């Protein structure tokens, strides 16, 4: 089941990112990804879905090469970005090439102000102050809330503000591709909507590609063109977003719509256990 998706009509040349059958081990003994393959077309938005602990974050970190910092390593398989094998590239080289990750859990620099945080995002940019200034204002226009708090230390801002800060920081590097790890976490509903709109806008206007790890399946499948579902370190299902939305299992377990419309959280039954694709 875990072979590369045959159905996807993506020609290799159009792929900005392709991950081929990678395995990831933490601490030399814990095998977390057991052969994951996925592809992101240039200018596409791809969603990576899956339960807690399925390995979404790990996949993204494997791509952006941040695993090394957590004592994890890619032990098998290969990763290509923009036509280059990037397995041995340092994270900063990758950012320079245009692939940046927004990490889960708001990894802001607590002792830097919001504005300084945003500026660190522009670290690899060769273009001058003016362009950076312009993008800074752009970020503030996306997220007015952090515009108001731009001179406070990031460590003192609220959870949602930090999330916006992390996202804005990535935008500041003018990437070709963004690996977004749970962007909607902890954000108020209308901001979530806004974030996805921003994703769409960047994608359409600037041609930025996205790989999106999300729990908010609803949103993710609305904006993405293609989706992968990960379970226990394996891709168990993938397909066009539309097709996934129609899939009965996805409907039942990820979208919360059964035959009888939306379920209420009040009436969740204890016996309901998820059917596992891989048992």
């Amino acid at each position, binding site marked *: 089941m875990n072979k590369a998706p045959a159905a996807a009509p993506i020609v290799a040349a159009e792929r900005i990112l392709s991950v081929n059958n990678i395995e990831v081990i933490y601490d030399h003994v814990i095998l977390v990804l057991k052969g994951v393959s996925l592809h992101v077309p240039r200018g596409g938005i791809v969603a990576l879905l899956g339960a807690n602990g399925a390995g979404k974050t790990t996949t993204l970190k494997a791509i952006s090469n941040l695993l090394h910092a957590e004592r994890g390593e890619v032990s098998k398989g290969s990763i290509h970005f923009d036509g280059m094998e990037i397995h041995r590239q340092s994270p900063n080289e990758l950012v320079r090439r245009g692939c940046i990750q927004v990490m889960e859990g708001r990894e802001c620099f607590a002792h830097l102000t919001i504005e300084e945080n945003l500026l660190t995002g522009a670290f690899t940019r060769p273009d001058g102050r003016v362009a950076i200034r312009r993008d800074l204002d752009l970020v503030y226009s996306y997220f007015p809330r952090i515009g108001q708090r731009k001179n406070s*230390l990031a460590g003192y801002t609220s959870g949602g503000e930090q999330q916006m800060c992390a996202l804005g920081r990535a935008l500041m590097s003018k990437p070709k591709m963004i690996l977004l790890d749970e962007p909607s976490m902890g954000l108020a509903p209308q901001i979530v909507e806004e974030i996805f709109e921003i994703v769409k806008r960047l994608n359409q206007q600037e041609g930025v590609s996205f790989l999106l790890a999300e729990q908010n399946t609803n949103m993710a499948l609305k904006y993405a063109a293609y989706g992968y579902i990960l379970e226990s370190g394996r891709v168990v299902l993938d397909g066009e977003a539309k097709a996934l939305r129609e899939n009965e299992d996805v409907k039942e377990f990820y979208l919360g719509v059964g035959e009888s419309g939306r379920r209420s959280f009040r009436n969740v039954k204890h016996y309901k256990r998820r059917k596992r694709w891989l048992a």
Partner: protein
Amino acid sequence: MLLYKIFIDPFVQMGASPDLFVQTLWEGLVAGVLYALIALGFVLIFKASGVFNFAQGIMVVFGALTLVGIYEILVRWGISQENVAAFLALGLTIGVMFLLAFAVERIVLKPLVNQPDIILFMATFGLTYFLIGFGEYVFGGSSKVMIADQLYLPKGFIDLKILGGVVSLQKIDIAAAVIASIMVTGLALFFSKTRIGRALRAVADSHKAALSVGISLDQIWVIVWFASGLVALVTGIMWGARSEVSFALEVIALRALPVLILGGFTSIPGAIVGGLIIGIGEKLGDFYWGALLGRGIESWLAYFIALVFLLFRPQGLFGEKIIERV
């Protein structure tokens, strides 16, 4: 009686011989500057990586020994112009310090990215051990005389006949103060005005996040270790000129601890202000109150001074705020 000795007598003495008082102040100032130099080396590295660099002391020794060692070799090779040899040696030593920074980054720091501070602290201890062994192996254990004259460092003193006595200022101390101020200003500007400075603070905050935004830890670390290597070299020259160049210099690294903590681990100006407070505080304390307690109190006075300040500002005078949030 005791109260008199504590609260009155010292001030009477200060008034009675103002020249001694001024001299003590001056000594405190000089000591402060010298402490600040050592602390500066720590601050640079701490600022850039959150690493408390235990090896700073040995780097001071290593820098000074390398300088004198290379100088001796050059002279032996027949470079007769002493000053030329000295400055050539200085240049080569700077090169060695760069190599050291580079090697440390590659071999020690890079594999330890994103590890807890205390682990990196331990690694610098390993480095210390290695450098001690290596340094002694290469340079031997004998002491050397700092080539201060050859580097045009001033000698002798200026006697100021003021306040009914003599205040004597060593020229080398004046030079130390000047050089230290230039270095501190330069480094402070470099790290606050360039984008490297911001990146540095980012790295100190979180290695992982810094990596994720594309800050090159390799580059940053080589830069700061090189910078602190240079600071170590200057420190070595200054302290070496005051006594001798030997492994005994290593103990002075400890002098920097209270300064560092008082100033705040991450602040370049903090190092200098902390240095001055500690320097002046402990010289005055030891000079006017030391006899009461049976002398030798300088060894702990500095820590108590720093402790008192810290009780009011737990992050040091200029340290970064300790953020507590849930």
